[in-house]
């Protein structure tokens, strides 16, 4: 009996090659390709006066140099605004190579192609660019003040005013029993995958076709963008995402300048060209996220129940807006979390600054939203002298209130209607898991050791699996192999395994026979991409539906062959048989052969399928009307709206009052992503997300100075957590299936990172009795805060100190 693998912690199939050095990442491809390198702006804002390549021309190994002047047709136009929106009134994008102006350090100015990367960089060093520096805008406060502008024709530095509201919040606040207002900040961080971006392009001049490999999260979309910009017919371009060394959102943006320029050069030069960025390039020319200033006003009754919530947020979108206002939308719509918020307004001003562009990084605006909501809950609790878990409990949407309409419009243009969940259950499991009621005792113990101790928590609801669709193709070959493909991509989520589990279970075949391909436009042409925790929801369901189509056809053909009723048949270990009669059936591989009537018997299997093989009915065509040859099926899953996962984290910190070092001594997670295909993979996603949450709360910050120079553009000074910074995590699960899709799945990819900053801020505040209103926080900053007489103290003020 084939074990049903769906829901099991199946060991990953991709690990066979990845643990033996046989992965195939972008830079592993194309050893004979020419190498591209870029001259990038050293200034945050400047006019390009002159580009002098004279000194570079005699470098041996130089093949070509390109500047904006060399771009023609659509390549000379601005890069696209991928996601326009009516409220994005001033979208601006850059050019593949800077057109007279640079607006952030790192913006590409010239592309060099040479015989290898070392020589290409030698050439870059010799190109002399003369700039006229312009005033620089860094940070939302400077953007708002607008003493200088990033774009001449955007005098207030505002790209969009995003508004979501469910009623008259000002009236509701006036009528509230209590109100409080506060301002808080969260700083920039970034996805920072271990592998940077890269592009390899090969033009086949005989065939007039282009093949591009890109370390991307959206190969179908990159394909469309390249075809459009290089003015090629779509069918002449194929794009493949190879093994990708992490994405976390930064690789969803497209087309990067390099994704257009490298293929352009490959076509012009008639040779393969490859570019893979180095770490410094990634810091200054990929994308960042997270920076926001938040002003919150909340109205609540004497029991701590919120009656009105008003959030005014300034979001730093960097120098350009290629990804539109997705992050502001997500912050605005996810802020309400698992709570009943009778009247809500969110205004998000998206601001230009002379810094790297801001596009989604795991969480994509949700961590900021959670930070706003959860810190509001903490302040309400503090004001009323209530337990922070209790205040949350009183505001939760109840288990019997689903589907729950928050009356907001999500990033997919569809309503925010929570399909299912049990937030009460999350909170109960969380308080038990972390030992919330024992904190007082832990605190006393810590104090006896001369240390401060505090606990914090944060809950979230996460819209996942937005559409518009994904597809799946399942095909059984005459060899018995089952090919599965879907158009979205993989960056370590284990899709080759999880999707194989689905097919193995649906089709009743050994998983060893199933081979999954993702992100290859040669294999599946219609797709959206991997982001917003959507792959399992979208491709998982599409693949399941495709597998069911194959199953249905297999049973239909087998019913004929076995002279049985399809409803009496089952598939076990890849063999279709009458239920409960092993050894009497017909293998799927034979059905695959039989499904394709042939004229020529070129091998034994084919012989079975030729038109002369069996009696057949001479009055019927070999391929019935409406049928097709082959044992395969393509299907799509397109959701009516997103499905909403949820979770809750709690953190206990100990702080050393001599060094102000913050140690996380307990990190508890309760997590609900509906049905889990592979619980081991889900847990891995949570672990990774938590590490990024901890990094964002305590260590990671993009340190731009007032001149727009990124001072920590390397791992020396941008502090990504090592193992020593990441606490052990205890995890409990809850499962509230989604009623919106056949498998009941909700997304899990971003969950781990969403509440980290909020929960850790809350814990530090609890430990020190000082208001924590700016994250991340370092020991030095905490030290300064503790010594600042004007620093706001909490009402409970449990911190003991100097």
């Amino acid at each position, binding site marked *: 009996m084939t074990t049903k693998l769906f829901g099991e912690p199946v060991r990953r199939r991709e690990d066979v090659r990845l*643990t033996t050095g046989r992965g195939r990442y972008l830079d592993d491809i194309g050893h004979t390709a020419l190498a591209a390198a870029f001259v990038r702006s050293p200034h945050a804002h400047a006019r390009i006066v002159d580009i002098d390549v004279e000194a570079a021309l005699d470098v041996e190994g130089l093949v070509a140099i390109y500047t904006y002047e060399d771009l023609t047709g659509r390549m000379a136009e601005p890069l696209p605004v991928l996601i326009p929106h009516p409220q994005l009134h001033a979208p601006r994008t850059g050019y593949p190579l800077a057109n007279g102006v640079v607006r952030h350090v790192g913006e590409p100015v010239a592309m060099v192609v040479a015989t290898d*990367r*070392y020589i290409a960089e030698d050439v870059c060093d010799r190109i002399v660019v003369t700039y006229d520096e312009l005033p620089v805008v860094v940070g939302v406060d400077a953007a708002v003040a607008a003493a200088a502008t990033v774009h001449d024709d955007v005098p207030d530095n505002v790209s969009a005013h995003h508004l979501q509201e469910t009623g008259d919040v000002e009236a509701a606040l006036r009528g509230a029993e209590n109100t409080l207002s506060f301002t808080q900040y969260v700083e920039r961080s970034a996805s920072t995958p271990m592998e940077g971006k890269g592009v390899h392009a090969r033009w086949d001049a005989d065939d007039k076709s282009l093949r591009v490999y890109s370390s991307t999260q959206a190969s179908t979309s990159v394909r469309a963008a390249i075809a459009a910009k290089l003015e090629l017919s779509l069918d002449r371009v194929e794009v493949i995402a190879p093994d990708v060394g992490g994405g976390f959102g930064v690789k969803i943006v497209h087309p990067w300048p390099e994704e257009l320029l490298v293929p352009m050069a490959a076509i012009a030069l008639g040779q393969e060209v490859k570019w893979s960025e180095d770490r410094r390039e990634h810091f200054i020319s990929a994308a960042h996220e997270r920076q926001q200033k938040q002003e919150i006003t909340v109205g609540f009754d004497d029991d701590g129940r919120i009656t009105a919530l008003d959030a005014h947020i300034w979001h730093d979108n960097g120098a350009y807006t290629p990804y539109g206002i997705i992050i502001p939308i997500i912050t605005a719509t996810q802020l309400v979390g698992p709570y009943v918020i009778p009247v809500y307004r969110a205004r998000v001003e998206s601001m230009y600054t002379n810094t790297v562009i801001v596009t989604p990084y795991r969480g994509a605006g949700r961590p900021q939203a959670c930070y706003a909501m959860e810190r509001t809950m903490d302040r309400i609790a503090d004001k009323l002298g209530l337990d922070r878990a209790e205040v949350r409990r009183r505001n939760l949407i109840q288990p019997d209130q689903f589907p729950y309409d928050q009356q907001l419009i999500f990033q997919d243009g569809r309503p925010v209607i929570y399909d299912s969940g049990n937030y009460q259950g999350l909170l109960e499991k969380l308080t038990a898991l972390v030992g919330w009621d024992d904190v007082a005792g832990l605190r006393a113990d810590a104090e006896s050791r001369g240390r401060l101790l505090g606990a914090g928590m944060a809950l979230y609801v996460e819209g996942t699996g937005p559409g518009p669709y994904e597809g799946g193709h399942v095909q059984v070959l005459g060899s018995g192999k089952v090919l599965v493909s879907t158009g979205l991509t993989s960056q370590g989520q284990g899709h080759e395994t999880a999707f194989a589990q689905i097919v193995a279970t649906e089709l009743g075949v050994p998983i060893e026979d199933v081979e999954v391909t993702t992100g290859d436009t040669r294999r599946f042409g219609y797709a959206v991409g991997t982001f917003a925790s959507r792959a399992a929801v979208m491709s998982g369901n599409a693949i399941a539906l495709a597998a069911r189509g194959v199953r249905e056809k297999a049973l239909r053909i087998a019913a004929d062959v076995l002279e049985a009723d399809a409803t009496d048949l089952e598939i076990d270990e890849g063999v279709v048989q009458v239920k409960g009669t092993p050894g009497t059936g017909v293998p799927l591989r034979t059905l695959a052969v039989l499904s394709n009537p042939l004229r020529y018997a070129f091998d034994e299997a084919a012989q079975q399928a030729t038109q002369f093989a069996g009696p057949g009915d001479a009055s019927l065509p070999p391929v019935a009307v409406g049928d097709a040859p082959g044992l395969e099926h393509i299907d799509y899953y397109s959701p009516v709206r997103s499905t909403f996962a949820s979770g809750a984290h709690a953190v206990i910190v100990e702080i050393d009052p001599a060094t102000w070092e913050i140690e996380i001594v307990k990190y508890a997670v309760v997590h609900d992503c509906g049905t889990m295909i592979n619980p081991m993979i889900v847990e891995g996603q949570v672990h990774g997300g938590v590490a990024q949450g901890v990094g964002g709360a305590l260590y990671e910050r993009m340190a731009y100075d007032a001149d727009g120079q990124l001072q920590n553009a390397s791992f020396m000074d941008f502090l990504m957590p090592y193992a020593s910074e990441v606490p052990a995590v205890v995890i409990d699960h809850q499962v509230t299936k989604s009623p919106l899709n056949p498998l009941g799945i909700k997304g899990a990819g971003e969950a781990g990172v969403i509440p980290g900053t909020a929960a850790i801020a809350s814990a530090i505040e609890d430990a020190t009795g000082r208001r924590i209103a700016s994250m991340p926080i370092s020991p030095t900053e905490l030290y300064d805060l503790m010594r600042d007489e004007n620093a706001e103290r909490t009402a409970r003020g449990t911190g003991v100190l100097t």
Partner: protein
Amino acid sequence: MSVDLERTVSITVNGVPREATVPVRRLLSDALRHDLGLTGTHVGCEHGVCGACTVLVDGEPMRSCLLLAVQVDGRSVTTVEGLARDDGRGGQLLHPVQEAFRECHALQCGFCTPGFLTTIAAGLDARDNSVDITDDEVDELVGGNLCRCTGYANIKKAVRHAAATMKDPR
């Protein structure tokens, strides 16, 4: 600068004598990957912090992005491709740490993995595995490499698993 000084280096890589003629400024990471075709070693930062490029030079873990190829002329280098042993029957016997990584889901995207595998393999091979591994030893073995995907929990689990296997290879 159009004429690079070149040198022919002889390096025993994964037990096999290899030769390459490289510019003297060629990093060992690039020489392994592009001149010798061993792309298992990955480059994550080129400033010696992330550890993805870690190889064993005469058995010692070193950052190949901080070494020039000419510096290991005449020496032996082990990359991730060389951790498995020949099983004498035409197949490969994986190092216990490679098996452990698979068993414990200690990798997701796999980009940092080679650097962890070489470092941990060297560390486990150098210790007395008849003694149980301690938490401090585990922390030491994983503490110098960055991973963005896994949060390290399963990597630590894999180290304990591998050490246990090496203690009791049944």
